[in-house]
């Protein structure tokens, strides 16, 4: 092991030298929210990533791989401490994570400035898609707005005239409403902002019933969505007013929503029934290993592992040459579970987006299934402001 002298005190340089010295091991730090109510999502991502490492026999790019898992507890300050110790103590070559955009905002700088590659398997905030795009930062999910735009476009295409928007009263909620309105030009009857963490929606549902819109667009993530969907069904609205949603009905919440969510529409870049051979195999394995249907979080983390695998292979395990590594990552020379996939100039994906619908599987579990393709090879609207080529 080469000693890090104070002269070389730049943590990144040390990490780089030691990893060259070891040459045999590839170290990946994985950070996600693994405690608290949103833990379900983080656990899906972790499972997906670990499944990929297992499928590749513990070797990404042919190099023995060690994965360090950390829990950000959905607290930005905790996340920063944890990634710093991943970088300084464990000397990781890649950090994969996080789930939530506010955590991404906190760890993006500490990771990329240490010249470590950061790959987000879910959070795709606009903050790093435009002017502040970063050569060390890659996203295997989407730019957040895109998912909301899918539903706006669908509402527009299917001739809906009057829509009510319901979102939690915080930044991501307002972004969701804005994303929907990018593509939907009809009348917005009402925008309902509810406090984050609200459990009972009786008052809002009565308002919706009284206003009689053609559709409701909602971004009501996690446990909030479980409650909203159940109560939407109980109030008898599910059969009368189309419910379009993002991150509200997916495989992480469906085990709790069950029949209440059947037939509800969502936007996504993937679904468990997406017809590619590699995806079929992935869904089967995930079911067998974890007894649950994978959600987008799991598949995006799986793809993150495949991405690392392809790049490490391309540079023959020589992680020291960061320029070559970045170039190899940018190529995205791997078979994504979603099929067509490439990186935009801002390192966010260009991919297809689908309208999905909740259905019951033959084994009694629930999943989202693709109804139709809404966008083909769709890049985000911030990429043009990114100075990277």
């Amino acid at each position, binding site marked *: 092991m080469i000693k890090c002298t104070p002269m070389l005190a730049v943590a990144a340089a040390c990490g780089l030298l030691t990893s060259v010295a070891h040459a045999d091991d590839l170290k990946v730090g994985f950070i996600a929210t693994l405690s608290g109510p949103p833990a379900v999502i983080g656990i899906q991502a972790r499972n997906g990533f670990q499944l990929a490492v297992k499928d590749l026999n513990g070797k990404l790019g042919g190099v023995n791989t060690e994965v360090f898992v950390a829990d950000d507890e959905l607290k930005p300050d905790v996340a920063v401490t944890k990634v710093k110790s991943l970088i300084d103590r464990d000397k990781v070559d890649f950090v994969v994570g996080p789930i939530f955009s506010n955590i991404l905002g906190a760890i993006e700088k500490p990771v990329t400035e240490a010249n470590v590659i950061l790959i987000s398997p879910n959070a795709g905030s606009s903050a790093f898609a435009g002017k502040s795009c970063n050569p060390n930062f890659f996203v295997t999910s989407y730019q957040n707005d895109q998912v909301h735009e899918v539903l706006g476009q669908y509402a527009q295409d299917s001739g809906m005239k009057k829509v009510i928007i319901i979102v939690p009263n915080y930044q991501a909620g307002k972004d969701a409403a804005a994303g929907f309105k990018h593509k939907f030009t009809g009348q917005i009857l009402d925008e309902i902002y509810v406090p984050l963490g609200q459990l*009972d929606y009786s008052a809002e549902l009565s308002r919706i019933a009284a206003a009689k819109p053609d559709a409701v667009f909602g971004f009501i993530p996690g446990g909030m969505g479980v409650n909203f969907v159940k109560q939407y069904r109980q109030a008898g*609205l599910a059969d009368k007013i189309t419910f379009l949603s993002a991150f509200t009905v997916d495989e992480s919440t469906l085990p709790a*929503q069950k029949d209440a969510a059947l037939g509800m529409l969502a936007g996504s870049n993937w679904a468990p029934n997406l017809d590619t051979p590699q995806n079929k195999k992935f869904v089967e394995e995930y079911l067998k290993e974890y007894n649950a249907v994978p959600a987008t979080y799991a598949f995006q983390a799986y793809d993150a592992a495949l991405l690392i695998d392809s790049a490490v292979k391309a540079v023959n395990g020589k992680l020291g040459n960061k320029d070559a590594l970045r170039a190899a990552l940018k190529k995205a020379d791997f078979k994504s579970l979603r099929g067509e996939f490439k990186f935009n100039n801002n390192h966010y994906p260009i991919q297809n987006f689908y309208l999905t619908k909740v259905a019951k599987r033959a084994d009694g579990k629930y999943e989202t299934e693709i109804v139709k393709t809404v966008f083909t090879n769709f890049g985000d609207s911030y990429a043009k402001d990114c100075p990277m080529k």
Partner: protein
Amino acid sequence: MTATLFFVQVLNGLQLGVLLFLIAAGLTLVFGVMDFINLAHGVQYMLGAYLAVAFYGVVGNFLFALIMALLASLAFGLLLEFLVFRHLYERDHLDQVIATFGIILFLNHAVRMVWGAAPLTLPMPDAFTGSVLLAPGQLYPVWRLVIIASGIAVAGGLYLLVTHTRIGMLVRAGATNARMVSALGVNIKRLFMIVFGFGTMLAGFAGVMIAPIISVEPGMGTNILILAFVVIVIGGIGSIRGAFVAALLIGLVDTLGRSFSIDVLRLVMAPSPARTVGPAIASILIYVLMAIVLFLRPAGLFPARGR
């Protein structure tokens, strides 16, 4: 804004109020009679919901799950009382807060270890899955009406129990002057234990009743506990009647505030700022109400006599 919508929102407010009452009743009894601050009351509400889900998984019958969950909540409450709480009655409030806060952390994690972090659901009993048509387009779930009815029934039962039975008399006496009651030869320890177990059971009952509507997940009791404290402070600590009135008041103010704040603000300002300001005002309304009540009546609306 129409009369029917207003009526529906009043019903919604009543339902929230009744639920708050079920939680606050136990809290105010324990706080009033025993002078004991039990922050863990919220996790007992959570535990009621989880136990019902667990028992429902065994037999698939709601009524059975409800009864078993109530008995299990009671047993667990008594166990906690025996192991932890009874050693805290003589300590000051800060010790009680710290100890019961520890129980919150412990139970939230324990629940996660046993049942996992994913939200769970409790199906409604089949007889109450339908909804009634209140007005064209306004379907109201029967279960919410059942919650309102059961809450009012519990309130009536508690009223009879507290004002017309011997144990109720002791509870009232205990709330006024526990030492004197003890000096008169009443086994105050046993009384405390009964009150505590009963309070736990009420919280568990609230948890079971709400479980078919909201998701059952770790930490679900934390936010509602804050509201329950607001209720007992407004109602007057130790007063069941106060808790009932305050709970309904809070339920109505919160629900009507959330529903109509924007419409009201639109009368005086442009739609866009109204949309921003409305939800903000709605979420602080109940605390404003609490501040006003405390300013006018520092001991709450119906202070227990002799305190």
